[in-house]
């Protein structure tokens, strides 16, 4: 991949990562207690997080969690009721135009002119972002190559598959090589192969130093792509951290699934259960529990089997993001 984000020549990736002796750089994006309500509905409620250069920050949550509203406030499409957004240490509100110059926004919907070709779309958005005709044309060719669309450059977008349109949609935000890329569910509705291509492309952008804010409701994407993840639901940030940090909230590597007739039972009343375990999820047939404290899994298993209930099967698994989400919000993200 030959495409590089803005500032690459001046501030290469190694410089950013190894500059520990220099004064700390402000985060590329800082969101501080952002709130927005539509009538009685609080779409976003005091959300805070930061995104550093060369980092992919994932906002994970179900539909209606407030992810798109958050991105809309960050890029200036919506005015927050309260809270602040800073880009490169400067408040967005004081100079929105300067902040927008550093951003590239990929909306969830395909914001493309379907009558125009892929190259025309890219060049158009590049020209509007301030590039001269020659540069826009040059970067369009580079981007189409990187997005593996060079052979369809002159075809009308309306003839493209969903995955190809998604790639053009992504490319339109990259012409001016933004330092901060806001991606609002960029892989919705496309096939797995096209999704992998896009994720790989985004990893390439991270490697080149671009800060990426990535919203998704796909657990696998957040797990495999994001350096840090913020879990949002009903407009609130429930937890954030690396995947490891989030997993450790549930007892590190130890989650036990007990199969049996659990309808109507109350595990917390079982002798010795509450002291060593907590329930993550309970259904009529399945009970997912996390072990408390740093204990050997074999000890945990013995303790579970010693409980005065009839357990048909016990299995050990690593906590997933869905388990974390489940524990934080009380509902399954896959529902």
């Amino acid at each position, binding site marked *: 991949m030959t495409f590089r984000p803005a500032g690459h020549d001046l501030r290469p990736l190694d410089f950013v990562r190894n500059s520990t002796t220099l004064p700390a750089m402000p985060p590329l994006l800082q969101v501080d207690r952002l709130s*927005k309500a*539509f009538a009685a509905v609080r779409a976003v409620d005091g959300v805070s997080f930061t995104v550093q250069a060369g980092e992919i920050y994932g906002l994970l949550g179900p539909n209606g969690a407030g992810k798109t509203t958050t991105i809309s406030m960050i*890029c*200036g*499409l*919506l*005015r927050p009721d309260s809270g602040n957004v800073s880009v490169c240490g400067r408040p967005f509100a004081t100079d*929105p*135009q*300067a902040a*927008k*110059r550093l*951003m590239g*926004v990929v*909306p969830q*919907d*395909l*914001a*493309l*002119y*379907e*009558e*125009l070709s892929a190259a*025309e779309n890219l060049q*158009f*958005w590049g*020209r*509007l*972002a*301030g590039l001269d005709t020659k540069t826009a044309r040059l970067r369009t060719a580079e981007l189409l190559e990187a997005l593996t669309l060079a052979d369809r450059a002159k075809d*009308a977008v309306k003839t493209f598959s969903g995955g190809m349109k998604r790639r053009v949609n992504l490319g*339109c935000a990259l012409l001016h090589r933004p330092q901060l890329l806001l991606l609002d569910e960029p892989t919705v509705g496309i096939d797995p192969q096209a999704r992998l291509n896009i994720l790989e492309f985004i990893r390439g952008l991270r490697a080149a130093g671009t800060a990426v804010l990535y919203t998704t409701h796909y657990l696998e994407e957040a797990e495999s792509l994001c350096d840090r993840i913020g879990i949002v639901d009903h407009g609130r940030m429930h937890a954030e951290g690396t995947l490891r940090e989030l997993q450790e909230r549930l007892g590190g590597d130890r989650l036990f699934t007990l199969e049996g007739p659990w309808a109507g039972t109350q595990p917390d009343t079982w002798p010795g259960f509450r002291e060593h375990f907590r329930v993550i999820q309970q259904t009529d047939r399945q009970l997912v529990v996390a072990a408390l404290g740093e204990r050997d899994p074999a000890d945990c298993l013995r303790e579970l089997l010693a409980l005065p209930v009839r357990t048909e099967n016990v299995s050990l698994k690593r906590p997933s993001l869905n388990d974390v989400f489940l524990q934080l919000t009380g509902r399954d993200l896959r529902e």
Partner: protein
Amino acid sequence: MLRTLLAKDFARARRNPLPWVIFLLAPLCVAGIIGFAFGGHQKEQKISSIRFALVDEDNTIVTRFLRGGLNQGSFGDERRSDVPLEPVLLERGPALAQLNDSQLSAVVIIPAGFSADFLDGKKVALELIKNPTESIKPTVIEEGLGILTAGLEGLARNFAPELAALRDVLDGDPSLEQIGPLLTQAGQKLRSLGPVLNPPLVGYTKAGGATSGNAAGGSGFNLFGHLLLGLAAMFLLFLGGLGMGDLHREIELRTLARYRTLHVSLTPFLGAKVVFTGLMLLLCAAIILGSGTAAFGVTWHRPLALLGLAVGYAFFVAGLMAVIVAWIPDQRRADPVRSMVSLLLGMAGGCAFPPEMLPPFFQMHLMPLLPTHWFASTARAVEYGDAATAWLPVALKLALLGAALLALAAGLFRRHFAKGGRA
């Protein structure tokens, strides 16, 4: 940036021209149908020649004199009236047969004994038989006959002694010695009447300043052209809706939202859309009026005035349609409103039919307020009325109104976005 935005819009219109073509064809088809129905295919709209028969059953020297005058081959060419008469001399039977075949518009019969009775000062009557399948042409003949009988009436009342003497002369063997004194007597009478009759103290001029002549502007009336100007005014509203309505599509496509994430202001985006719509409207106006010329032979006598009016009108239409989009950003709700507004403005502005057909209240109180009427009436006056019609103030008024509407639209858009409305 404006060039980039315009290039994008024109490229999109070029790749998907169908909506524009449909809206362009509509006024041509409607005007064409109406124009053909009224004979608008002729290059200049005039009544075709009126063929009528003169049946002389009296056959005297007086009626022969009259027939001879009518029978001159140059009669139609030398007439001062625009009405082309084509008289034929026939016997009663063949004349009525041709009338039944609709080959004639009317038959005028001079009954036997007409001359003798007239010269005797008795009451006489010419006989008129009109073709019942026609309306206008027989009426023209009837009106003409009315003028003729009024003239004969005046002659009979003022020259009774001379006419009686003339009858005596005609009954015998007429000679110049007998006729000469009669002519002298009649001449003296006419001379004495001269100061009374000439110059006429009461006259009329054609409405619209016929004195300015045709060369400078207002020219031969053309029904198709007259209709086309009004229909163009109405359909340019629809075309303007299509052009500015593209903002709805930009909202729907989320491209306007993407635009708003850039570091540029909204003004160029709206400005480009206005310029695009304005240019498309001018192009469409040229196609509509040009098609009128190519297909129906309509001649536009004052193209500069029409261009000026079209520019002002395009501004107004773009402004109006921008307000509708800004007011109702949801396309599904806006479409019927836009259609209704266009239709109402077109109809009430007298674009679709002659304004005189509207109720007096509309004509007196409503139409003067409607920009569609400003455009259509001025364009029609420029082409078919007074050549001195002041079109520039009307064009400026339209453009200023358009600018005011655009400012209103921009304000509505800002308020919509500030409230968190969908872009």
